[in-house]
C-alpha cells in the first residue's frame, strides 16, 4: 500500500514531496526532544539518543569479528593437531571447539527464539551446556587419553 502511494506520488509530483509524507511512517513514538514537533509533516527516524551509553557501542561488530577470527584459528588447529598432537593442542581444541559451538548455537537461538523470557532461558541453558562441555573436554584431556589420541584411536578401528 505504502509502495503504491509512493509510486503514484513520484509520478504526479516528483520525488521531493515523498520526503515529507508521514503517512508512511505512522507508529507510536517516544520523543526525547525538549521541543514538541513543530511541523505536522515530519519523518520519524531511528537515531541514537545522546543519553544512551550503548549508542556508540560496537560490541556487536566486535563479536562478529571475533567469531571469524576464532573460525580461522579453528581451521588452523586442524592440521596442527594432525601433525603434532599433544596436550597443548588438546586443550586449545577443547577451548576453540566449545567457544565456536557456543557462539554458533547462540546465533541459532537469536534466529529462532523470540520474547525476552524465552531468550533469557535459552541463553542460560546454552551457557550451562557450553560450560559442561568445556569441563568435560578438559576432564577428558586431563584424566584420559586426550582429544587428539581419542580421534586417532577411534579411526584406527
Amino acid at each position: 500500500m505504502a509502495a503504491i502511494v509512493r509510486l503514484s506520488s513520484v509520478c504526479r509530483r516528483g520525488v521531493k514531496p515523498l520526503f515529507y509524507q508521514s503517512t508512511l511512517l505512522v507508529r507510536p513514538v517516544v520523543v526525547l526532544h525538549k521541543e514538541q514537533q513543530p511541523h505536522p509533516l515530519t519523518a520519524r527516524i531511528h537515531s541514537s539518543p545522546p543519553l544512551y551509553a550503548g549508542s556508540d557501542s560496537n560490541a556487536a561488530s566486535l563479536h562478529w569479528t571475533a567469531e571469524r577470527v576464532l573460525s580461522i584459528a579453528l581451521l588452523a588447529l586442524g592440521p596442527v593437531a594432525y601433525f603434532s598432537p599433544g596436550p597443548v593442542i588438546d586443550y586449545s581444541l577443547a577451548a576453540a571447539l566449545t567457544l565456536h559451538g557456543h557462539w554458533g548455537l547462540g546465533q541459532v537461538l537469536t534466529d529462532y527464539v523470540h520474547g525476552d523470557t524465552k531468550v533469557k532461558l535459552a541463553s542460560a541453558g546454552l551457557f550451562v551446556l557450553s560450560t559442561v562441555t568445556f569441563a568435560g573436554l578438559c576432564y577428558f584431556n586431563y584424566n584420559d587419553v586426550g582429544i587428539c589420541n581419542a580421534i586417532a584411536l577411534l579411526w584406527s578401528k
Partner: protein
Amino acid sequence: MALLLRTLGRQGVCLSKPHYHVLYRHAAPMGTTAKEEMNKFWAKNSRLNRPMSPHITIYKWSIPMMMSITHRGTGVGLSGAISAFAMAALILPGNYTHYLDLIHSLSVGPILIGLAKFGIAFPLSYHTYNGIRHLYWDIGKGFKIPEVYRTGYTVIGLSVVTSLALILM
C-alpha cells in the same frame, strides 16, 4: 533516506551544526532500538495468536538454501555430538579405551564401520568447507549468483571426496 537523516541528526557529526539543521529539522529520533522493535513485533503477533505465514513449505527450494540449512544442521549436530561426548566423559565410569574395546568386541562389520565413519567425516568436512565459503563471503567476494552455485558445488564435491579419503585412512 532514513540513513541520510540519521547521519545528519547524529551528535558529533560536523553536519549537525546549527546552520545545517535545515536538512533534518523534520526528523525526530524514535525512542526504541531495533531489538525492542523486533520484540514488540513478536509480542504483538503471539499475543494475537496469529499463525505464521507459510514460508519454507511454499517457497521453491534451491541449492544455496539447502546448503545453508545443511551448514546449520551439521553445525548443531557436531556441537551436540561434542557435548554428548563431554558429558559422557564426566558421567560414565571407566575410561575411553575401555569403551573402545567394548565397541571392538561387538565385531561390527566393515560396512557399518565405514558408514559410521562417514557419518562423522561428512558433517565435519561439509561444515569446514562451507565454513571457508562463508569466510570468503565475509571478505565480500563470491556473491554473484553463478559464483554462489560454483563455490557451492565445489564445497559439496570436496566434502564427498574428503569424507571418502578419511574413511580409507
